[in-house]
């Protein structure tokens, strides 16, 4: 295969991994909010931070592979 295809496969893997991770973060955050609605603000902040970290990781990998 051409190198470009390998790159695309890698990008796909990264996106799958990041998608699973984001789903976990979002789902657990929802659960947390449902359990403790009064902690919504704190949970959201933590969720956004972790999501951003994950996203940074994914983007970093995508750009390094490019």
């Amino acid at each position, binding site marked *: 295969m051409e190198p470009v295809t390998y790159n695309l496969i890698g990008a796909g893997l990264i996106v799958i991994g990041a998608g699973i991770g984001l789903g976990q973060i979002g789902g657990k955050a929802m659960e947390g909010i449902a359990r403790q609605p009064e902690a919504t603000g704190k949970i959201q902040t933590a969720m*956004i*931070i*972790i999501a*951003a*970290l994950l*996203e*940074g*990781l994914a*983007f*970093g990998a*995508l*750009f390094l592979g490019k």
Partner: protein
Amino acid sequence: MKIFQQGFKSLALALLVFLPASVFAITTASGEGEVDTKMEVEDYILHHLKDSHDFSLFSYTNGEGERVHVGFPLPVIVWSSEGLVTFMSSEFHHNDDGGVIVEKGGLKFAKIHSKIYELEQGATTVSFDAEHHATNGTKVLDFSITKSVFGILVIGLLMLFWFSRLASQYKKKQIPTGFGRVLEPLVLYVRDEISRPNIGEKHYRRFTGYLLTVFFFIWILNLVGLTPLGFNVTGQLAVTACLAIFTLVIYTVSGNKDYWMHIFWMPGVPILIRPVLAIIELAGALIIKPFSLLVRLFANISAGHIVLMSLIAIMFTLKESLGVVGATGLSFVLSFFILLIELLVAFLQAYIFTMLSALFIGMAVAEHDHEHEHDAHGHEAPDAEDVRGDFI
């Protein structure tokens, strides 16, 4: 005050009216700069993501079949083999593939993909190798007032103007009026939601100025990047690297004894593991943290620009299969929703960058005056802060 405001408004209005008159319109041969095919779209987007040496607003083909570029040139300042050389970017005539060679002080310069090359003595044209790298030229250190530098200057002056006016309002009254009323809650937001909780009541005052500047700088430039002006300042690796290095310097310089102790000689772990941990911690503090900061901002903004421009380009690329109306409609709907998401991302990235900077600074200045709790086996119970530190 009223007169001043009026004066400012009329000045802005005059600028808006006269700016197009002062911009230069350069004509090149027809076809050049037109974007129609998929390859050209890709090239155009990649070109946009890079910095550019002139400020072009739009271009069109006039009745005589010539391409007209409307915009204004910016000064080029390069550090060549014979010292500083300056000229206006209009001398390149919008050429970006090394076709136009500018001679200044006996040196020849060519612009290839937004990079300025100094040609070797005696060369008259740029020669390329198979991978389209210039073989007879070297890259020069480019201190030009590029589009990004221009953007930084404009936004910096705008911020200085807005916030110093807000500051002077407090001298006369307790509650600001006008635009200050919009800015005050934002300032309070950064102070109370980002700076204070992450750095701690004792130290936050020292760093709030930096965090506020960075927050508004990134946010405003992200938003400006979404306008048709076509700035891509926060999508420049050099700018985000510069911001990340500022944060690195700040938290390295202000780190206290506890912080360095946790890096070099982590308390509460077996002695043998401590040197290994020290290496990991040191790499994390000096390389991974700033790298994640700079790549995150750069990648998000670049990706946003790529997606938005690709969706706009649907207008040309799908013209044949969907028809003019269909392609334009699809492009409009998709790019509209992506633009909304990008507006959120513009804020989110500014928030994340500031938040993480505050977090890192907070970890560096945190005082561990409390003894770590030990569990039944004599191991240290993980502290919330340490756990948080491990994840970042």
